[in-house]
């Protein structure tokens, strides 16, 4: 089964990633929070897309108070989950986002 369109975009793990990190940084999120979210999504990779979407939305709603920027991002992506491979691709995307955020922050700090 093919991933749905947003997950096939050439900039899904490129420019989109940079824009998302800028949003999260503005929202005071840490790479570690993103890494935790990536693990949450990874745990749902085997679930059907409908279930993954529902559970991610639930997770994001619960996380809204503590990590609003990350919760907003997660809600956005949860709404785009359509096919089986999407969830695993989203988990990989969030892992990259956490690692990129860490690399960018480490560079800024020095």
């Amino acid at each position, binding site marked *: 089964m093919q991933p749905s369109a947003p997950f096939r975009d050439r900039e899904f793990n490129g420019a989109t990633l940079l824009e998302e990190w800028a949003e999260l940084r503005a929202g*005071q999120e840490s*790479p*570690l929070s993103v890494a935790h979210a990536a693990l949450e999504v990874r745990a749902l990779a085997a679930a059907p897309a409908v279930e993954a979407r529902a559970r991610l939305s639930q997770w994001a709603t619960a996380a809204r108070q503590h990590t609003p920027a990350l919760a907003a991002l997660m809600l956005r992506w949860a709404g785009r989950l359509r096919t089986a491979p999407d969830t695993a691709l989203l988990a990989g995307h969030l892992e*990259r986002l956490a*690692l990129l955020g860490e*690399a960018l*922050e480490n*560079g800024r*700090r*020095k």
Partner: protein
Amino acid sequence: MSARGVTEPELPAERLRAEVLTRARAAGHPPESLRAFAEAVAHLDEAALWQAVTLVPRAAAALDISGRLAAELDPLTAWSLNRAHADEDALGLPTRGSARPRILVGAEEDRELSLTGAKRLSARDLGESPAPPSGRHARPAQAPSLADAPTGPSGRFARPGEPLAAQQAPSSRHVAPPAARLLGVAHRRVAAGPAFPTGRMMELLVEALLEGLPVEAQLSGPSATGRGIFLQAREAGSGHALQLHVPATGETAWFNAQDLRDGAALPILGRRVCALVELLLPGRREDA
């Protein structure tokens, strides 16, 4: 001997001290850190002062590329790192680059957190045991990870029991940041050289990118050097296209991997970048 001759021996130390303090101030350290630093170096002669603010190889090995550059530019940071290593030597502690906390002076600990915008993390968040109450140089207890393991010239992590050739390979360990650690990713520094020719560096780079791991790199050209983050690789024709982001300029560009292998100018940093100098290579930990 002239009056000039009498005062001359003191002048170089004074000049060096003034230069060192100017650089530390320019690096943005708070007044209390600068004061403590000034007091600590006040009685050092020129040679001792030079030595104190020049990063020792052992301290340099525990830093990534940009960390090393920063420590070389900022004498206070170099002094802190050297001092931490000297403390460890005195205590007979083994070298464990990946477990070393960043050395911060006084109020810088708070400044660091506010600058990054990161939330304060507990030792549990970091996957570490709480640090003993002996102060900021305390080392968190941590199980050995691949970030601690020496690597061989083959470019992959050495397995237990495997002969180590780390002394021959210009690669070294790196402090594992918390998110990477949580995701089971370890980093090692791989420098271009006889053990890692450009072709091999490119293979490692593409391998990591295809695995979904962004790679930090130091790039250079005839007249420019820059830190870049390779974001992704895609198959393109018989080779790969790579996407590179340069945080300092905000540039992001795609280019053919073959161009980087051949040392061609890249469409980034004013087309002056053309060679890989060093990679901070991520890899999945086998124990993750």
